């Protein structure tokens, strides 16, 4: 590996976006290595979309710097955009054109040769399983098909960095898994992927590393599995219809206890004997003992209050 190869695909330093008094992103710094798949997690309004929109040259940062493959997003927007593929949160396929024409016109924006674009478009339509829809109007596509077409469109310029803003929001499980499969398929090509999501499962399925954001800041980052164990442990106990005696019992155990509405969450420090202990002392107690997930980390870090 020469020194160029070791340079990160994405580099952000103290990236900040302010709208008047509102600070949407407050000085975030991070790196994404080449070929890595990184997920930005966070509730609505956490600053994920603003961050990726700054990286993809849609929004000028108020301060701080960001670069993609060493190209500064502010100084070299055209070159940066040539290197990246963007899959926006809302579908913006061109409703005035059918599927194939959408790709052909998009390729033209990149100044690509028409024949090259046509060949790639056919390949990509096959890749996202839309070959039989090549001449369908956009209005005739389902939500999942549109999403797959947006993904195909984002790959048209053979990007080295793919930026996906909530790629599977609003899709049914089949469509979601189809998208995941495609994203995993890109890993073998060495494409760097940065995605935002608030599906915990999506992040743990796809990402080498997750970055949790809230209130415009990075709260923590790490590999999904290690993160869960480090932050909340291995096991979570959920209990309902409980009495004071049960709460007292849990308080005496080492671990973290949380009461949300009429539900009790207990994150034991030592998880091996929890189930046996419960069976002995409170066999009738309605409870669920499960593995801790990224969602527990997320809720621990960002709280349970609703965000809009």
């Amino acid at each position, binding site marked *: 590996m020469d020194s160029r190869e070791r340079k990160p695909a994405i580099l952000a330093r103290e990236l900040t976006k302010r709208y008047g008094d509102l600070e949407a992103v407050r000085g975030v710094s991070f790196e994404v290595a080449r070929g890595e798949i990184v997920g930005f997690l966070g509730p609505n309004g956490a600053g994920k979309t603003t961050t990726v929109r700054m990286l993809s040259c849609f929004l000028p940062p108020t301060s701080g710097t960001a670069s993609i493959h060493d190209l500064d997003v502010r100084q070299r927007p*055209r070159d940066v955009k040539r290197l990246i593929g963007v899959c926006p949160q809302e579908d913006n396929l061109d409703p005035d054109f059918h599927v194939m024409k959408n790709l052909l016109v998009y390729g*033209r*924006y990149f100044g690509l040769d028409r024949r090259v674009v046509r060949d790639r478009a056919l390949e990509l339509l096959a890749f996202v399983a839309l070959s039989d829809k090549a001449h369908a109007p956009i209005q005739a596509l389902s939500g999942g098909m549109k999403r797959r077409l947006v993904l195909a469109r984002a790959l048209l310029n053979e990007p080295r960095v793919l930026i996906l803003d909530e790629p599977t929001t609003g899709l049914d499980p089949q469509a979601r898994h189809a998208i995941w499969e495609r994203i995993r398929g890109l890993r073998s090509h060495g494409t760097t992927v940065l995605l935002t999501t608030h599906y915990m499962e999506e992040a743990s399925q796809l990402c080498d590393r997750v970055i949790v954001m809230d209130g415009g800041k990075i709260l923590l980052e790490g590999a999904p599995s290690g993160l869960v164990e480090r932050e909340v442990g291995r096991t979570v106990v959920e209990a309902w219809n409980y009495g004071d005696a049960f709460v007292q019992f849990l308080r005496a155990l080492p671990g973290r206890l949380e009461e949300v509405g009429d539900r009790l969450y207990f994150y034991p420090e030592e998880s091996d004997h929890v189930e046996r202990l419960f069976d002995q002392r409170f066999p009738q107690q309605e409870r669920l003992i499960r593995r801790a997930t990224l969602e527990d980390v997320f809720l621990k870090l960002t709280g349970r209050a609703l965000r809009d």
Partner: protein
Amino acid sequence: MRDILRNASLRSFRVWQRDMDVYLTNWKTEFLPPLSEPILYVFAFGFGLGSLIHKVQYEGRDLTYLRFMAPGIVAVAIMFWSYFETTYSSFVRMYYQRTFDAILATPLLVEDVILGELLWGATKAVIACSIMLGMLSLLGLVSWPAGLWVVPVSVVAGVMFSALGLVVTSVTKNISSFNLPMFLMIMPMFMFSGTFFPVTILPRWALAIAWCLPLTHVSYLVRAAVLGWTRGPFVLSVLYVTVLALVLSALALKLMKRRLIQ
């Protein structure tokens, strides 16, 4: 401003090309209005209203009402086709279809998009006005070759009204708000710019206002060309339209950029 000049590029042609592709896909419906409009106008105003009007005194000559009015509807078409394109149609592309967002994910910059839209609006005016000119020519209402001067006039005037439309779009929050400038600016201009009657019959104060309206200059130039009058004090009108086209284009780029990038 320097930014804008540096960032605008020939890539804006790709945006123009996109709009042109859509236009050609729908050519049957797009060509119908400029083909049928002159016929409707000629029957309603030329034959209908014109039969009540003996003749029109214009620039010291007597004209039938039909001959006077025909160039007026060409001038109106230049305004309507470009202004509507960069207001309602551009707004739909920007706001509802998010077409601009999609384009901005490619190597094109926001200046390219705005410039492409501006030129497309002007192109639509040129196409519509050429079709109308052809129709009026079939009715024997155009002198050739002087009538060809209408084309360069429609290019500059098209850019002017197209830019005016983008300026309006840049400050418009929702699509129904377009009604306001429509009734305060475009409709009065449509009626009082020497399109359907000579501005000289207006009272002095109104005449002064009429000559401030860009469409007055456009209809003056178009009428001279269509009637085959190649001599006259055209320089002032050409200058007025050209300068306004440049000023409004710069303003459109500045304001639309602000609107698109927050």
